[in-house]
């Protein structure tokens, strides 16, 4: 009988298991169907919508905390086909949204066979609707089930300038979406050029996700699980740029009607104070709105190429502004000494070769006067002496030494600033000349390439490199990679490459005679109209032959001020500007005055420059 009892007990265990499971399931049903308020709320819900909350894009301020780049609200109207009311007042909708009946039909009937569109999911009905239209539509939204309003941020530019520096934004391409692994979705915005492009990953912020319960008419009922799974959107980081927006604006005004570029740098830090490429355009034209496409096409078709950023993309021969650099290298390499004199007989002559000196001047008693008078002969000689340092037939070694110094100054390769599309200029290498002048045909010597001594020939620099050169001279031998970012507003450190000091191998003492020479150029030499009463300005002009039109040389100036403890270094390159002294140096000078004084006293010069129109054609 004992065994019988065990089986009896086991039968009860099995029965107990069945009953307990039944009770558990009933309990679960009770909690789901009766007790759980969450499910009560979902009683009429038929789905959950994943709503993406777009973060505000980061703003950009200038170095004085003035807002350069702002966000403005624009709206997209979305529609879900299955939720439309077939009896809705279509005419009223068209009137409210200010569209025609044809537009309405075209926008609402998508190709539903295409997987991009689904009748059950919202798709774009009308984009870029202004806040005024939207507010009115919002009032009547309840009459139009299936329609919804989506906020999109658009950029606006209070100063209407710095278009290239700030850059524009556009909708992401399929490639952007694929490359970024889930960060972007169709219709998102991405920075295309300028700072918008460069700092995209900081500016864009992080999207938020809200899960919203919907009933079977698509009406939102409230957050899913009380919003527990939602994530907040995080606004993009605000940036304080190194740009001085008023200086930038002033520079753009000065460059109106001209082609060329200006870059101003704070030598102490490498901050780019202004970066002007002319011609430019009002950045508000490219803000995302209805007319953008048209403006974009117009700007692209403009023969003066406003999208071609002349500060970093244009490679110019430096011309005479190269001379101070030649002098510095000569001094450092010991082939030149500060009080070396030279009698200029109107040009550099070597056998059959003549490099004419265009400036009319007498005996040059030292380096400073050589620079001040911009004597071609003087610098061809210095350049030849550098190249021939290891013997006339050993030009390769001498030239390699020379270009190594150029590399130190950031020439021949991009400076790697925080700005896209930067070109590196051109410093011809030893092997380049070996190919150009093969040994069988006599090879090459210092005299073959002597025009480089005065900044002509193959040597090319971008305007940013010229400005950086001015800053390096101002610093007496070192520079910080120029950059457009000053700091992130939230304290995120800026890239370390902008706080790394680059030291050249020119000793500080060699800079004094050269800077004295650049001062002489302003005081008594070629750059006299760069003088600013009361400001100790130092600089050098250049005139570069224009291969397309002999009468229209390019005008160039670079310099810094004040001479001691410099605050600003500027390079200005004006295409077809003629002599360096006619356009480039007054522009740079005015800019320096504006920056150091805040206002410009030389109104006459200012007006004259502003009114000047320069083109490649004789007028």
């Amino acid at each position, binding site marked *: 009988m004992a065994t019988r009892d065990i089986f009896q007990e086991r039968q009860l265990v099995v029965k107990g298991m069945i009953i307990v499971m*039944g009770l558990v399931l009933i309990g679960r049903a009770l909690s789901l169907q009766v007790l759980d308020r969450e499910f009560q709320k979902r*009683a009429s*819900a038929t789905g959950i919508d994943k709503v993406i909350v777009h973060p505000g894009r980061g703003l950009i301020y200038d170095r004085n905390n003035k807002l350069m780049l702002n966000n403005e609200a624009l709206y997209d109207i979305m529609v879900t086909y299955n939720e439309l009311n077939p009896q809705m007042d279509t005419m009223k909708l068209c009137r409210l949204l200010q569209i025609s009946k044809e537009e309405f039909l075209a926008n609402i009937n998508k190709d539903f066979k295409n997987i991009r569109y689904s009748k059950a999911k919202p798709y774009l009905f009308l984009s870029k609707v202004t806040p005024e239209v939207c507010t009115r539509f919002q009032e009547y939204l309840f009459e139009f089930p299936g329609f919804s309003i989506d906020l999109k941020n658009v950029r606006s530019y209070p100063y209407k300038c710095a278009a290239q520096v700030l850059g524009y934004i556009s909708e992401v391409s399929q490639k952007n979406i694929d490359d970024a692994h889930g960060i972007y979705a169709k219709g998102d915005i991405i920075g295309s050029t300028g700072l918008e492009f460069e700092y995209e990953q900081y500016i864009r912020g992080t999207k938020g996700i809200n899960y919203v319960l919907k009933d079977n008419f698509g009406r939102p009922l409230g957050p899913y699980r009380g919003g527990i799974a939602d994530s907040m959107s995080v606004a993009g980081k605000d940036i304080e740029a190194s740009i001085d927006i008023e200086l930038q604006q002033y520079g753009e005004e000065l460059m109106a009607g001209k082609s060329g570029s200006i870059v101003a740098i704070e030598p102490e830090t490498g901050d780019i104070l202004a970066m002007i490429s002319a011609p430019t355009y009002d950045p508000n034209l490219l803000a995302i709105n209805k007319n953008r496409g048209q403006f974009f096409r117009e700007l692209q078709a403009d023969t003066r190429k406003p999208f071609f950023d002349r500060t970093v993309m244009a490679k110019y021969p430096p011309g005479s502004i190269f001379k101070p650099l030649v002098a510095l290298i000569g001094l450092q390499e010991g082939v030149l000494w500060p009080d070396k004199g030279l009698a200029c007989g109107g040009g550099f002559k070597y056998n059959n070769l003549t490099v004419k000196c265009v400036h009319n001047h007498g005996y040059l008693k030292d380096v400073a006067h050589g620079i001040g008078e911009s004597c071609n002969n003087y610098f061809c000689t210095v350049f030849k002496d550098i190249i021939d340092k290891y013997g006339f037939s050993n030009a390769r070694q001498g030239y390699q030494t020379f270009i190594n110094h150029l590399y130190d100054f950031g020439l021949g390769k991009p400076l790697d600033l925080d700005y896209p599309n930067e070109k590196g200029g051109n410093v011809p290498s030893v092997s380049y000349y070996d190919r150009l002048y093969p040994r069988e045909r006599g090879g090459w010597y210092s005299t073959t390439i002597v025009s480089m001594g005065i900044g002509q020939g193959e040597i090319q620099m971008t305007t940013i490199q010229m400005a950086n050169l001015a800053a390096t001279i101002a610093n007496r031998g070192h520079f910080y990679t120029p950059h457009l970012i000053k700091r992130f507003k939230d304290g995120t450190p800026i890239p370390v490459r902008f706080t790394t000091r680059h030291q050249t191998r020119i000793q500080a003492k060699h800079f004094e005679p050269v800077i004295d020479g650049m001062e002489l150029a302003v005081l008594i030499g070629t750059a006299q109209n760069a003088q600013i009463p009361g400001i100790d300005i130092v600089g050098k002009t250049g005139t570069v032959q224009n291969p397309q039109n002999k009468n229209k040389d390019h005008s160039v100036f670079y310099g810094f001020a004040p001479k001691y403890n410099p605050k600003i270094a500027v390079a200005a390159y004006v295409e077809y500007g003629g002599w360096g002294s006619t356009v480039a140096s007054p522009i740079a000078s005015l800019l320096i005055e504006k920056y150091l004084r805040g206002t410009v006293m030389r109104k006459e010069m200012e007006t004259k420059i502003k009114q000047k129109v320069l083109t490649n054609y004789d007028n």
Partner: protein
Amino acid sequence: MAVQLSNQRANQSLDWITLSIFVALVATGWVMIYSVGYGNSGYPQDLGEFMFQTQIGRQSIWLFISFVAFLLLMTVDWQVWRTVAYFIYITGIVLLLLVPFLGKEINGQKAWFAFGWFTFQPAELAKFGTALALSSYLNSSTNVLQSLQSRITAIGIFVLPVLLILLQPDAGSALVFLSFFIVLYREGFSPGPYIIGLVMIVLFVLTFIYEPFYVSTALIALTGTIFVNQFRMRKIYWWIGYVVVLGLIVFAIRQQFYWTSWLANTAVCFALGYWHYERNKNRGNFPIMVGLFLCVVFSFTTSYITNNILQEHQRTRIKVWLKPEECDPQGELYNVLQSKMAIGGGGLSGKGFLEGPMTKLNYVPEQSTDFIFCTIGEEYGFFGSTLIIVLFVILLYRIINIAERQRANFSRYYAYCIAGILFVHFAINIGMTMGFFPIIGIPLPFISKGGTSLLGFTTMMAVLLKLDSNRYSI
């Protein structure tokens, strides 16, 4: 024959309770499938179209086939099943062997033979065959299950089809075969392994939800409590001291001194155990310590396995079950969530026949087969769900009673087998639709759409009723 004739008058009656619940459940299933298929647009008027073009039409044909089969099976002599048991079992095994080669792939599983619109799932036959074969084996001698060898054979009978079904792969059907442990328990297996299995499942679930660190901390603290409770002298002081220690440990965890607190906790627990061992020569605590040790090791091991050895989709499945709040409601959680929302949407009394928006508008996946319970929940609410659950509980309870009243051991074994199969189907399926169990694709008996499944369960019930009607035949 003589025996049968002599008892005919007394015992030819069917068990009406079982039969009527069975019929009620099948009818419910038909109505539910009708409702799901009704959708927004209703059914075609043409009868031919209705019968062959719609789910409910095809299900009606299967219902008719099952009805005929039921009548035919009732005419088969009850003694036959004992003798053909192994034959049916082997047929099932052979078909399971063939299905990977000749079967049709549906949803990534090769579990079906297809002849035109007629599909057949050999796993259903294998369930029935295994129930018969196991019963027959248990019936083979009086002292079966006494030797280790016979126990292994008994388990082997149903593990073989499990292995073959896992090849398809069909985890749901394979799980059903574990229900045969119920009959083995009833017939003499010791409860120890069952308890250990249960403890392991509970530990696994707790570990997944709360991390092994917290699970082991709780287990160690609990063991310490048992030891403290053994003190006879100044018990209250020991208790106060222990509560203070636990408070310090909780404080240390809050301060993120995780492993320090863990070691302290273990040290206290061991010290208490050792105290009783030294002072009171209490050796009874030794197995407790071993058990604790094994539980802690098990907890950390399962955690390691789930995090490092299981594949991502397997981990996701478990997560959907145990940590739904961490899952994407638009992604992996979608099915469960839609299912729970449909059931929850039914409220107390439901939305009424053909009125459930979620099931009608196809918001719930697989809603006429594995998720048919959603339709019941949405259209008939808590009352409807409870009614179905109660019907199943009564049916299962009744089958156990039927089992226990059999004189023929074979019949008792068979009834327990059927009860086990139905129990697993019922519990897992309904539990799954309400998020109580993980998503395992098995049908709800008698109710879910599916011809083979309906025919299979009908066969099981028919044989059960036939055996029961002959219970006085020996």
